[in-house]
C-alpha cells in the first residue's frame, strides 16, 4: 500500500471528495481508490493473504461438510463435552475480548473523557465484530442454526441464563451496530443520518453497560449449571459472574491495545493524525485501566477461594495449574502493565496486553473445556474442529481489516478535499 | 386338605407342591413331577421346571415361604407366619399377580402397614426365587440356559441375523 500511495497521491481515501472536488464513487471507495488491477496486485503482495488463503482453502470445505453432514462430521460429537472449541473459544473467548465497545463508550460518552475519543470507534468496532463473530461461532455450533431466533420469537424459557445471554447479545449487537453506524454513514456520504444515532448515544451507551454487565456475567453464570462437573477452583457459585465480567474488562481493554498496535504497525497509512499522535498516551491510559481491573479480579478470585474454603485444593495438581493460569495470565501481565505505565513504555504495555488476551482466552478454555468434567477424561478436539475455529477467526480478521481499511475508524472523515494534510501525519516516512 | 396335613404330620417330610398357575388344578392331589410355565410366552418359549428334582434336594420352605405349612426359611415371612398352617393353594400365582403392570407394588385394599406392600409380581417372584438360589447353589443362571427365544424374542434382542445357536 505504501508503495502504491506514491503512485496515487490522492491515497488513501479519507473523505467524500476526490482531489478535483467531485464525489468518490462507491466502487472506488471499496477499492480504496485503486484500479482493480492495482488492488489485486496489492492483495497478492501481502503474505498474510496467502496464509489466509490456505486457512480458508481447507476451512471452507470443512464448513460445508459441517452443514451437509452434521456436527458429528467435524467434531468428536461428544455427549460428555457438549461444548467444544466453537463455544469454548468462539463464544466464551470472543465475547470478553469484545467488551472494549462498552468500556470505551462509557469512558468517552458517559464520563466525558474526550482524550480517549480517537480510539472510541476502534473499540466500538472491535466490540461489534467480536460479538458478531461470537454469533457466527454459535451458528456453526448450534444443532439447528436456522432456529437462532427461537428464544426471541417462538418459545421462551425466561428463567434460563442462556435466555438472558441470547436476549442481551442480540440487543447489544443492535446497540453496537447503531454505535458503529455513524462511521458507515460518513463513508457512504450520508453524514446527516448520524444525527439520529447521536441523539440516542447516551441511551445506547447506558444500554451497553447494562447489557454487557449482564451477559458477560451470564456467560460465567452458565457454568453454575454444572456445579458438579467443573473443577471447584474454576467455579464459584457466588462470584462466577463477577469473575467473568471483571476479566472481560481487562480482556476488552487489552484487545483494543493489541488491535490498535497492529493497525499502527501494519496500516499506518490509514491512521489519522489524532489517532497516531495520541495512541501512545491512550495505550498507557488503557493499560492503567486494565491493571486496576486485574487487581480487582485477583482480589475477587481470592475471595472466591476463601469463600468456598478451597485452600487445600491449591496444593493439588489442579491447584498448581490454577495458580499457573492466574500467575502467567493475570499477575505477570499486570506487573508488566504496572511497569509499563510507570516507565511510560508503550512497548511493554503492548506486550502485556498480548499476554493478557492469551490469559483471558486460556481462562475461558479452562472453564469450558479443560477443567470441565475434571473427574471424567479430557476430550481433545478433532483437528477439523480446530481448523474450523481458526477459519472463522480468519474470517473475523479479514472483516476487521476490510472495515478498518475503508471506514473512518482510526481517522476522521473529511467532508472537504482540502483536509488531507491536517488529518494525516506524514505516513510516507514510515510512521509507527 | 386334611390329607396334606396328615401327610406332613405322619411322615415329617417336606411337602412338594407346585409353582405354576398353569398347573393350578393339581395341587391338592399330589406333588407335580414337572411344572410347565408358559403363562407369558412371548419373547421366550415356556419353561419346564423339574419340580420333583427340586423337591428332592430342597425344603419346601426354601421356595414356598410359609404357604405349605412348613416353617418358612424367610425371616421376613416369619414375622407373622412362623406357625401358619398350610394354605389352600400353594401355587406362586395364587399370591403373586401375573399382571406385572402398573401399581402392583401396592395392591388395592392393602395399607402400607401390611408387610405385603412390596410383593413382587409373578414374573419377579419366580426369577428372584429361582435365580437367587441358582446363584448360591450353582444352578443355571444365564437367561438362555432356561429360556429359549421365540422368533419375536430373537428380534427383540437383535439376534435375528445371527446364526441360530443350538
Amino acid at each position, binding site marked *: 500500500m505504501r508503495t502504491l500511495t506514491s503512485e496515487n497521491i490522492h491515497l488513501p481515501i479519507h473523505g467524500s471528495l476526490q482531489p478535483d472536488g467531485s464525489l468518490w464513487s462507491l466502487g472506488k471507495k471499496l477499492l480504496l481508490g485503486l484500479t482493480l488491477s492495482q488492488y489485486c496486485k496489492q492483495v497478492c503482495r501481502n503474505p498474510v493473504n496467502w496464509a489466509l488463503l490456505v486457512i480458508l482453502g481447507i476451512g471452507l470445505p470443512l464448513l460445508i461438510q459441517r452443514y451437509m453432514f452434521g456436527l458429528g462430521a467435524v467434531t468428536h460429537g461428544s*455427549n460428555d463435552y457438549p461444548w467444544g472449541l466453537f463455544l469454548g473459544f468462539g463464544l466464551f473467548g470472543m465475547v470478553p475480548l469484545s467488551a472494549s465497545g462498552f468500556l470505551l463508550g462509557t469512558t468517552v460518552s458517559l464520563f466525558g473523557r474526550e482524550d480517549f475519543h480517537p480510539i472510541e470507534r476502534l473499540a466500538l468496532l472491535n466490540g461489534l465484530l467480536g460479538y458478531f463473530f461470537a454469533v457466527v461461532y454459535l451458528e456453526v455450533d448450534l444443532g439447528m442454526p436456522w432456529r437462532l431466533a427461537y428464544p426471541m420469537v417462538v418459545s421462551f424459557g425466561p428463567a434460563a441464563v442462556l435466555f438472558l445471554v441470547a436476549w442481551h447479545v442480540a440487543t447489544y449487537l443492535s446497540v453496537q451496530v447503531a454505535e458503529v453506524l455513524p462511521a458507515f454513514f460518513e463513508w457512504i456520504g450520508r453524514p446527516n443520518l448520524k444525527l439520529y444515532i447521536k441523539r440516542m448515544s*447516551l441511551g445506547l451507551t447506558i444500554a451497553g453497560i447494562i447489557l454487557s454487565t*449482564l451477559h458477560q456475567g451470564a456467560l460465567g*453464570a452458565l457454568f453454575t*449449571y454444572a456445579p458438579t462437573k467443573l473443577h471447584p477452583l474454576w467455579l464459584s457459585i457466588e462470584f462466577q459472574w463477577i469473575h467473568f465480567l471483571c476479566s472481560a474488562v481487562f480482556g476488552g481493554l487489552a484487545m483494543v491495545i493489541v488491535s490498535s498496535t497492529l493497525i499502527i504497525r501494519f496500516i499506518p497509512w490509514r491512521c489519522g493524525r489524532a489517532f497516531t499522535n495520541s495512541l501512545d498516551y491512550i495505550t498507557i491510559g488503557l493499560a492503567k485501566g486494565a491493571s486496576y481491573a486485574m487487581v480487582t479480579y485477583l482480589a475477587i478470585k481470592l475471595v472466591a477461594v476463601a469463600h468456598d474454603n478451597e485452600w487445600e485444593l491449591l496444593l493439588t495438581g489442579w491447584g498448581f495449574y490454577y495458580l499457573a493460569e492466574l500467575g502467567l495470565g493475570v499477575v505477570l501481565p499486570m506487573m508488566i502493565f504496572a511497569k509499563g505505565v510507570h516507565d511510560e513504555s508503550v512497548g511493554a504495555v503492548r506486550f502485556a496486553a498480548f499476554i493478557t488476551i492469551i490469559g483471558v482466552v486460556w481462562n475461558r478454555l479452562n472453564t469450558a473445556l479443560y477443567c470441565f468434567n475434571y473427574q471424567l477424561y479430557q476430550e481433545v478436539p478433532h483437528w477439523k474442529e480446530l481448523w474450523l475455529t481458526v477459519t472463522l477467526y480468519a474470517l473475523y480478521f479479514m472483516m476487521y481489516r476490510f472495515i478498518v481499511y475503508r471506514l473512518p475508524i482510526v481517522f476522521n472523515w473529511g467532508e472537504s478535499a482540502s483536509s488531507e494534510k491536517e488529518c494525516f501525519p506524514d505516513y510516507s516516512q514510515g510512521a509507527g | 386338605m386334611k390329607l396334606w396335613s396328615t401327610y406332613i404330620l405322619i411322615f415329617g417330610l417336606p411337602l412338594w407342591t407346585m409353582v405354576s398357575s398353569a398347573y393350578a388344578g393339581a395341587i391338592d392331589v399330589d406333588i407335580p413331577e414337572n411344572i410347565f410355565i408358559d403363562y407369558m410366552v412371548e419373547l421366550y418359549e415356556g419353561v419346564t421346571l423339574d419340580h420333583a428334582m427340586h423337591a428332592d434336594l430342597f425344603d419346601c420352605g426354601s421356595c414356598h415361604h410359609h404357604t405349605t405349612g412348613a416353617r418358612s426359611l424367610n425371616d421376613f415371612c416369619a414375622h407373622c407366619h412362623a406357625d401358619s398352617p398350610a394354605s389352600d393353594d400353594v401355587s406362586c400365582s395364587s399370591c403373586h399377580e401375573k399382571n406385572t403392570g402398573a401399581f402392583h407394588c401396592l395392591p388395592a385394599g392393602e395399607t402400607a402397614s401390611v408387610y405385603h406392600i412390596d410383593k413382587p409380581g409373578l414374573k419377579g417372584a419366580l*426369577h428372584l426365587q429361582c435365580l437367587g438360589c441358582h446363584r448360591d447353589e450353582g444352578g443355571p443362571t444365564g437367561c438362555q440356559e432356561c429360556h429359549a427365544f421365540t422368533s419375536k424374542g430373537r428380534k*427383540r434382542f437383535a439376534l435375528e441375523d445371527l446364526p441360530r445357536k443350538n
Partner: protein
Amino acid sequence: MAENTSRRTILKSSLAATMATLFFHVKPGTAHQVKKYPDSLGVLVDLTRCVGCRSCEAACNAEQGLPKPDKPFTDDSVFAQRHHGQKRRTDETCYTVVNRYNPPGIEHPLYRKVQCNHCQEPACLSSCFVNAYTKTPEGAVIYNPDVCVGCRTCMVACPFYIPTFKYSSAFAPRILKCVFCYETRLKKGQPPACVEACPQQALTFGKRDNLIKIGRRRIDEKKGRYVHHIYGEYEVGGTSWLYLSSVPFEEVGMNTDLPHQPILDSVKNFLGIVPMVLTIWPALFAGFHLLASRKEYAGSTQDYHDKEESQ
C-alpha cells in the same frame, strides 16, 4: 456526543430502559421452592436384584424405535467396553444402558441401569432457554424437538450426563433421552417398557412417595443387605427414579457428591442480580454522566437550549 444530552433525553432514555425492562424480562429470577409433584410416579431400582440381562435395554430399543445395536442385547462383551476409560453411557442409539461393576468385597458383580432419573426440579428444564422440556404431573421429563435450538446446555446442566445429541444429523438433529415412555405408556398409567421387561423386578414402578416407603422398608427389613440410603430421594432436589444398593453408591459409578438442592439453586445467585442491574444501572450511570459532565453543562446550558429551540 455528550454535549447534546439534555435532562429530557436522559429521562426519556431511562423511561425507555425501564419499559424495556418490563417487557423483555418477564421473570428472570424465579427463586421458588422445589415443586411438589404429589402424584409423581417413579421407579425404584434395586441393584441387588439386577442380573445384567439387558432386557430393559432391548425393551427400550423396541419401544422407542431406536436403531438396531451393533451387538445383540445378549452379548455380555459390552460390559467390558470402554470409551475414554468410561463405561457405556446413553447416546443417540440408546436411552438406557446397564453397566457392570465389581465392587470390592462381594464375589458377584453388580449391575446398574442408567437412564434419565426424571428429576423433581430438572436441570435440563431450568437451563433450557426455549422451554423445550416439560415436567409432567406424572413425573416424566419430556422434550419437545420442535422448539429446540440445539445449544446443548441441557447436556452441560444434567448432573447425570443423560441427554444426548444427534450429532450425526445435519438437518434434523435433536436431543435424545429417556422420556419415561410418557406418550406410549406413562400417560395411561402403565409402567415404562423397561420396567415391564425386567424379569427380576429390579425395577419397581409406582408412586414416588410409595417407592420411598418401600425402599425404606427394604433397607429396614433386610438388615445389612442395603446401604442406608435411597439414591435420588434428595439428590439434586429429588428424582423420580430411585436407587437401592448393597454397596456404597460411588462403587457402582454413581456420583455421591451431588448437592441435595436442585441445580437451579446454584444459578439463583446470578438470576437474582439481573433485575437489580436492569433497574439500578440506568439511574446510576446516568447520574455518573451528569456528575462527570457538570462543568460542561454549567458553561453551555444557555447555548445548548438556544440551539435546541432553534432546531
